[in-house]
């Protein structure tokens, strides 16, 4: 029998339903993989009992002849940004260490309702701020990938969903939740050779997800195939009256409508994404991507997204601005860390708690955000960035007159080594340069693995779709998946 940890979401779900194995066997196999993977530091807490209980429920439902959910028997990793009832939820921060919510996020509840179970809470960049998973209070996540020359430098799994990408790539979980504010699903997916999709803003409820930048934050699935992403996204998505920005639309049947036949479709190639200094191997993967999509029947057309170069600066104004306000609630008054020096008044308590409770990157962004919203700077920074955001959305609107989906690289480079960019925040921010425009426009975007580079590290291709057209993105992703034949996986060293 195939090792159960090699199976993806669809294979597990179908195998459990067919009686090839039990959900309990699947959960146990994955719990064991979790327990053996301490070196990756991918989990902040593990929850084997949650996975087992969910599996037992699925097995007993199946025995009783009850209908099984779309994720029945699938144990997953949960990014520790989602509130989970009775399970510590930290956002990888000291300030929320030991915070245990009495409520369950809408997205995680949807997944449990669909029959999934939880292996544990996954490490991430603190408050989802970072691109390498090096800002976590609970330490770096180490990518399961290594350079093929045998160099044993620890590589970044990407961020902020670095725990998610690491466990899925390492066959510790068949899938994991991620969140994407400016590339936090797509970039780590690209770095680790897996798939990840950020749906249209509003598809997945933000209720119960620790907020980073509310106008950008979107949850999405990370898994090893396009089909698995479609299945899991369908389970996660849906209108939620508790989130005012939630889309009041029915959830499409993405899985059932998957098709790699792209005849009649046009794929746009944005010329502004061909930036100076982009890794030649990245450009090569892009060329291959075009060929694969042509092969699937699509017509490839050149398009222009003229305001692309302003996207990153605008993002690094808007996201910190929102974050500076969203993170004000962590003040030591009601929950989480409280630092109360002798004789401290209220202001002293705020200062001490936040100085102790937030990491450097979080503080940096709170400071940037506070600055750009300040009297006298607001128009020059925040308002200007909002205008840029409008122009970027308009760029895409115009592009849709010429194409149905856009193909671009996900990242400018392959995974870098941990520590490489920690002293240079701007270099780190540049990692999101291809991911950020779709975030600002609220569009669905996905990364699928394309090839290994000369170092034996994965490179991803990004597909950006029209608002609400996750199907178009998934279908183009499927066409690439079928032609790329990417089956590389990290060799187990942990």
């Amino acid at each position, binding site marked *: 029998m195939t090792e159960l940890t090699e199976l993806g979401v669809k294979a597990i779900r179908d195998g459990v339903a067919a009686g090839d194995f039990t959900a309990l066997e699947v959960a146990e196999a994955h719990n064991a993989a979790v327990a053996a993977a301490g070196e990756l530091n991918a989990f902040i807490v593990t929850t084997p009992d949650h996975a087992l209980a969910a599996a037992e429920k699925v097995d007993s439902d199946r025995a009783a002849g009850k209908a099984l959910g779309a994720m029945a028997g699938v144990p997953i990793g949960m990014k520790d940004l*989602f*509130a989970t009832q009775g399970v510590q*939820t930290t*956002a990888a921060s000291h300030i*929320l260490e030991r*915070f245990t*919510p*009495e*409520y369950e*996020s809408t997205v995680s509840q949807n997944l449990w309702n669909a029959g999934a179970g939880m292996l544990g809470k996954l490490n991430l960049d603190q408050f989802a701020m970072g691109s390498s998973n090096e800002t976590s209070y609970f330490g770096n996540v180490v990518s399961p990938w290594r350079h093929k020359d045998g160099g044993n430098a620890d590589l970044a799994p990407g961020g902020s969903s670095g725990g998610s990408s690491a466990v899925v790539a390492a066959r510790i979980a068949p899938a994991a939740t991620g969140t994407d504010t400016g590339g936090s699903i797509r970039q780590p997916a690209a770095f680790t050779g897996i798939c990840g999709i950020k749906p249209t803003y509003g598809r997945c409820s*933000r*209720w*119960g*997800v*620790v*907020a980073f*930048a*509310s*106008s950008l934050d979107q949850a999405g699935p990370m898994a090893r195939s396009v089909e698995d992403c479609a299945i899991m996204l369908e389970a996660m998505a849906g209108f939620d*009256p*508790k*989130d*005012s*920005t939630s889309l009041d639309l029915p959830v499409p049947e993405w899985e059932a409508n998957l098709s790699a036949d792209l005849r009649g479709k046009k794929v746009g190639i944005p010329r502004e994404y061909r930036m100076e200094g982009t890794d030649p191997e990245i450009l090569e993967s892009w060329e291959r991507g075009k060929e694969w999509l042509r092969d699937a029947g699509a017509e490839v057309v050149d398009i222009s997204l003229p305001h692309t170069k302003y996207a990153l600066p605008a993002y690094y104004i808007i996201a910190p*601005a*929102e974050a*500076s*306000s969203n*993170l*004000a*609630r962590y*003040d030591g*008054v*009601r*929950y989480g860390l409280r630092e109360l020096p002798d004789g401290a008044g*209220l*202001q002293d308590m*705020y200062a001490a708690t936040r100085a102790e409770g937030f990491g450097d990157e979080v503080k940096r962004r709170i400071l940037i955000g*506070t600055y750009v*919203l*300040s*009297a006298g700077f*607001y128009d020059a920074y*925040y308002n200007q960035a909002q205008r840029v955001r409008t122009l970027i959305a308009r760029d895409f609107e115009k592009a849709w007159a010429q194409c149905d989906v856009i193909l671009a690289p996900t990242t400018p480079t392959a995974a870098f080594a941990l520590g490489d960019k920690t002293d240079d925040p701007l270099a780190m921010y540049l990692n999101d340069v291809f991911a950020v425009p779709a975030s600002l426009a609220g569009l669905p975007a996905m990364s699928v693995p394309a090839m290994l580079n000369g170092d034996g590290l994965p490179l991803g291709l990004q597909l950006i779709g029209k608002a609400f057209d996750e199907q178009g993105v998934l279908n183009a992703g499927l066409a690439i998946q079928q032609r790329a034949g990417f089956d590389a996986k990290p060799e187990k060293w942990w």
Partner: protein
Amino acid sequence: MSTYRIQGATGEWEVVIGLEVHAQVTSNAKLFSGASTAFGAEPNTQVSLIDAAMPGMLPVPNRECIRQAVRTGMAIEAEINRWSRFDRKNYFYADLPQGYQISQLYHPLVGEGSLTIEADEKAGIPQDKVVGIERIHVEQDAGKLMHDQHPTMSYVDLNRCGVALMEIVSRPDMRSPAEAGAYLRKLRTILRYVGSCDGNMEEGSMRADVNVSVRRPGEEFGTRTETKNVNSVRFVMQAIEHEANRQVDLIENGGTVVQETRLFDPNSGTTRSMRSKEDAHDYRYFPDPDLLPLELDDAFLEECRASLPELPDAKRRRYVEELGLSDYNAAVLTAEVETFARFETLLAETAKRLGKSEKDVATQVANWSLSVAPGVMNALGDEANPAHATAGAQAAILQMQAAGEISGGQAKEIFEIVLKTGRAPAEIAETEGLKQQSDTGAIQAEIDKVLAANADKVEEYRGGKDKLFGFFVGQTMKAMQGKANPAVVNELLKAKLG
């Protein structure tokens, strides 16, 4: 034009006043959470996860709060903005769990409107005056710190946290404490008519920030100060008076007024500095990314408009023009919701019983409601049970009086017994002998006796001394022990005397 002036050492000063009124929206639930808004509950028992700003919680606008603010805007004939937006006002305080208040700075729900304060000669308001209202926006209230529960610590009560407030911002159109008082009372009346705020200042449902500056009459506005959170009409008037005089003294002694936030001390009736402009917070307002812009459709606006009651000015006009009431009676009857509600119920009931139009009985009912009934109640004090003063009982009394069955005096006596016992007026009149004699036979007999006993006066009357008619009426009534119907007495006497 207000003639209110501060007499300074160097001449006259005019006071310029603007008010920002915070009115708690009448609604069972808070502005962005489902938590209850009931007043006086145990601390921290009406707090949702959203109010406590737990991680990942999101606000969802409460339609009823928006509806009430829109109806209020319509009641002051303001522009309703079909597109408005919520902004975050960022600052740290222990009673503000989110670290920001959700408010509306850039695009308020309600735009320009106005209300009219009525002329009041005694208060120095010579004619009706229109006071501009710049805007109404909706926002969250904060919680409350309690400093008296522990020797070294402060406690936080989040019950009020997230309750919906309307901030109603006037133009700097008022020129005297009396005008400010009249504005507040009128605003309170409108809010209570509309039902969007209970106007209860003691419970903090309505509070005012008072902006005051002084200037030489006709010159440019001076620098203003803002006195925060004043919670009664009287205190607002006191705060203005004190603050205006303080500013005049300051300027006349060579100082300058600084723009600052001040606090009112109700014990001394004075204001003191809280923080100056230099220490003012930078609130870093920006659009709340958790909320979509608020867009109002025609159906919603139509429903809001249709649900508006007759408003104070219109009602008052109708009382004068259609019911024929005096200006004074109309003003008093329409000042409070409870007053006009009682009046209109009694009016309808009385008209129905008498088979007459409301206009025909309005003056009688108004006099009863404003002077007779309150007089009896006040005289009785604690002996009166107001629950017995039903519209049915009072209309029954008015009906008997109109039919001549009872006199005005008897009406009062009957009402007194009604208030004490709740017995039926008709039964009281019967049992207690509180009825007028309209039996022409009995009255005729007494008239014959009176005329016979006063034959000389009858001669004088017939000789042209008309004034004696009153004397005969008086004698007859006396003989009837006051229980004769005066109209019948008059009629019979006239016939007899020729």
